């Protein structure tokens, strides 16, 4: 792992207590002759313990952004700083729930083994491992499916296994890429509350990508709206709803409707190809 000199970065990080800093990120996928400019310029920082939602049109580069942050993809330009350290590979203490959750579970392992494996890598003692795994599975409502193999479960259940695995890992940063795409509305509502609950309990910094505008407003303290590809930040929306949220009450408030409408409008504009520079310069 690369170690940065604490003298330059630590005071800054301590002063603002920034968990994650994305600075001038650019990502262009290169191929033979064909290159795709996925992210043009993204800069934002996430305070420790914040729950940030990221929304944007399909193909905007949300997954690309998360993969850069997770150290799975080299950036073209700019840098990503996590806890004062520049990300050059998968950082310690980060858990990722992938969009393709089914393929991220190992079919040759049972559910229990899937959740336990990362803890073995972290050398968590066996007794504690067992307890943490059981707790995580119970938390996602899969307490009795530990012996099953992932392919014996429904899509939504597999998704919950992936979430349990991330939670059991006790990360300081949790990254989720459209984790509820495959579950029914009721389970989805439950899982949303589960994520907020876990977030409260663990004090973890969460980055949550979703297609669902309601979900982004309901879950987040803040919603980052991305433009069409090549991606820039369209707007950084602060969600000033009370911290205590519940499915019916919160969604029924006037403020929720306002925020939701605002994000909705932004997304519509993003889909239509609107970009921030259109506001600044003369229309062309």
């Amino acid at each position, binding site marked *: 792992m690369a170690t940065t000199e604490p003298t330059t970065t630590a005071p800054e990080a301590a002063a603002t207590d920034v968990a994650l800093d994305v600075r001038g990120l650019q990502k262009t996928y290169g191929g033979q002759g064909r290159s795709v400019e996925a992210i043009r310029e993204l800069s934002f920082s996430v305070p420790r313990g914040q729950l940030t939602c990221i929304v944007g049109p*399909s193909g905007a580069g949300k997954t690309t952004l998360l*993969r850069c942050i*997770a*150290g*799975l993809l080299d950036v073209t330009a700019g840098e990503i700083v996590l806890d004062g350290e520049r990300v050059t*590979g*998968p950082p*310690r203490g*980060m*858990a*990722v729930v*992938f*969009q*393709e959750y*089914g*393929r*991220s579970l*190992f*079919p*040759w*392992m049972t559910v229990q083994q899937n959740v336990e*494996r*990362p803890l*073995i*890598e*972290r050398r968590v003692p066996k007794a504690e491992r067992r307890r943490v795994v059981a707790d995580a599975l119970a938390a996602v409502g899969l307490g009795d499916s530990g012996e099953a*193999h*992932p*392919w014996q479960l429904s*899509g939504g259940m*597999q998704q919950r296994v992936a979430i349990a695995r991330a939670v059991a*890992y006790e990360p300081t940063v949790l990254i989720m890429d*459209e984790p509820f*795409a*495959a579950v029914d509305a009721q389970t989805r509502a439950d899982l949303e509350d589960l994520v907020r609950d876990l977030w409260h309990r663990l004090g973890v910094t969460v980055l949550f990508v979703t*297609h669902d505008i309601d979900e982004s407003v309901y879950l987040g303290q803040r919603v980052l709206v991305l433009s069409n590809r090549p991606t820039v930040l369209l707007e950084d929306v602060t969600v000033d709803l009370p911290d205590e949220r519940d499915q019916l009450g919160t969604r029924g408030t006037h403020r929720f409707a306002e925020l939701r409408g605002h994000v909705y409008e932004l997304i519509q504009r993003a889909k239509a190809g609107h970009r921030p520079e259109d506001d600044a310069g003369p229309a062309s």
Partner: protein
Amino acid sequence: MTATTTDVPAPRRRVPLPSGDGALGVLGLLTVAAVVEVLPRTGLVNPGYLPPTSEILRALGGVLADADFWRLLGLTLRGWAAGLAVAMALGVALGLLIGSFRVLREVTASTIEFLRPIPSVALIPLVVLVFGSRPPSALVLVVYAATWQVLVQVLYGVADVDPVARDTARSYRFSFLSTGWNVVWPTALPYVVTGFRLAAAVALILEVTAELVIGVPGLGQAIGVAQSSGAVPETYALVIAVGLVGVLVNVLARVLERRVLRWHPSVRREAS
């Protein structure tokens, strides 16, 4: 694009051969037996070249009752198993090693493409020169031919690791060895088993060839002896016996495949 339908890695390159209907298969066999019975008797084929089925079967009975047959069978199986074991070890080790490092893959690619098409039998003069008609001759031929089967399969297997599974292992910071053992090996396992099945068949062919051509002791050598002493029905009987060994080997390999790959989609579907 939300990937809701992507569940388990689809087993590619593993289309099962049509195993056919049992009853029809027996019918086919009986037809062949009947034709072989009739042809020499009607004089269409010289019985000196192709004796009728009944005579071959009688000879087969005699062969099976002979203790010497079982001793030779033991020698053939021993040579086969030893060669297969070495080929498995070599093929799996080399395959995992080469498959895990891009540099090695690129360095070895042209060498493999050059060496692989060399028929094992082309090495016969060489091994005779070095080992004469002793078992090591057969061993070299068997190992050479069978290792390719395993190696190529393992290379495919290692390349088949799901990118998302690999990313998962990376982001949870699996160690190199742990990734190998928990992610790469289970992915490659179906290919290893396929490689085993193919290698088992090829190894038997090469073992018998070495015995027949070079005179390494075993069933192949017995076929050669029977043929040169004009015992035509015995020759056919021995050929059939060797064929039966081949069938048995294949059946065992398939049973093994099923046991090892209980979790694998191709097996799951059949089981449920």
